């Protein structure tokens, strides 16, 4: 990286001494965050691989079991999560303009929309529970073909959506901290790196869902995989 060696005469308490200038400091944060997110992508990648491998092995069971998910609830929830990504992007925008009230408002909206998403997810989990679609002793995939292999689909369903939900819960905790800090005026248009880095995390969680939605809800919907 070409570093600018413009000396900083003014005292900038947000610039740590080992960085040449704020731009270099921000680049370092961005790269660090992306490296973390890439490890997360590999983390989820193992589950995606397990999904593809078992779907390849038992296509009928997967087609049959995935039709148990509720398409319209899934699509609505995807919409809710995309809305929360928009409010997060607008929060970063507000931070970059130094608009404190807007920043707090958009962060709060992001938290609320995330809460709506997880509530709907909770409703879906409950629905699966009462219909005996949770793998275990009482499991019963009613009317499924190749029913013996359908617990594989549901295990992956709960594993993948559960890990995604856990990421959202962690996001809620961080959001609350950021909202409190923003209210106290910790961030301004010159320095709002934590807001921006959290934005990357939140959008990453959105991207994981963008792939979970078609894999778990959509691809066998036309009933083609069934005889």
């Amino acid at each position, binding site marked *: *990286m*070409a570093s600018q060696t413009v000396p900083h005469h003014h005292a900038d308490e947000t610039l740590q001494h080992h960085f040449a200038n704020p731009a270099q400091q921000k680049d370092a944060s961005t790269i660090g965050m992306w490296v973390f997110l890439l490890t997360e992508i*590999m983390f989820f990648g193992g589950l995606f691989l397990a999904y593809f*491998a078992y779907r390849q092995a038992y296509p009928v069971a997967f087609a049959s079991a995935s039709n148990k998910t509720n398409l319209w609830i*899934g699509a609505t929830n995807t919409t809710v999560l995309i809305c929360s*990504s928009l409010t997060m992007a607008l929060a970063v925008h507000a931070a970059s303009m130094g608009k404190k009230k807007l920043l707090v408002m958009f962060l709060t909206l992001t938290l609320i929309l995330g809460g709506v998403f997880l509530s709907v997810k909770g409703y879906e989990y409950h629905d699966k529970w009462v219909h005996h679609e949770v793998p275990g002793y009482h499991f019963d995939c009613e009317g499924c073909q190749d029913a013996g292999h359908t617990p594989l689909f549901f295990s992956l369903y709960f594993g993948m959506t559960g890990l995604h939900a856990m990421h959202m819960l962690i996001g809620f905790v961080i959001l609350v901290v950021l909202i409190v800090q923003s209210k106290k005026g910790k961030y301004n248009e010159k320095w709002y790196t934590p807001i921006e880095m959290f934005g990357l995390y939140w*959008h990453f969680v*959105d991207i994981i869902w963008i792939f979970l939605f078609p894999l778990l809800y*959509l691809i066998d919907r036309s009933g083609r995989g069934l005889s």
Partner: protein
Amino acid sequence: MSDHAEHHIVPKRVYFLVFFALIVLTWVTTIVSTVDLGALNIYVALSIAIFKASLVVLFFMHVKYGTRLTKMIILCGLYWLLLLLFIAMADLWTRGWMGVPGR
């Protein structure tokens, strides 16, 4: 040329356009999934998902306006993910191609 991310502020209009595209694509992919396209269903669904994810990465995550180093690191990470998925799946896809002697 300095390769630092400039203090680039993305206009709000871009966010709303991307948001609109994401919502439309979500409902398009949902409705298309109920139509029997034969073997194409999975490719259509995953192509739309990849396109949506790209929009999020480029605009919401500001990668379009980021440094070349950031872009390079992301591409390396995605390449690594493709290795994981394709090498493992290439094994499973091709196992039936050749008979195993003695079986």
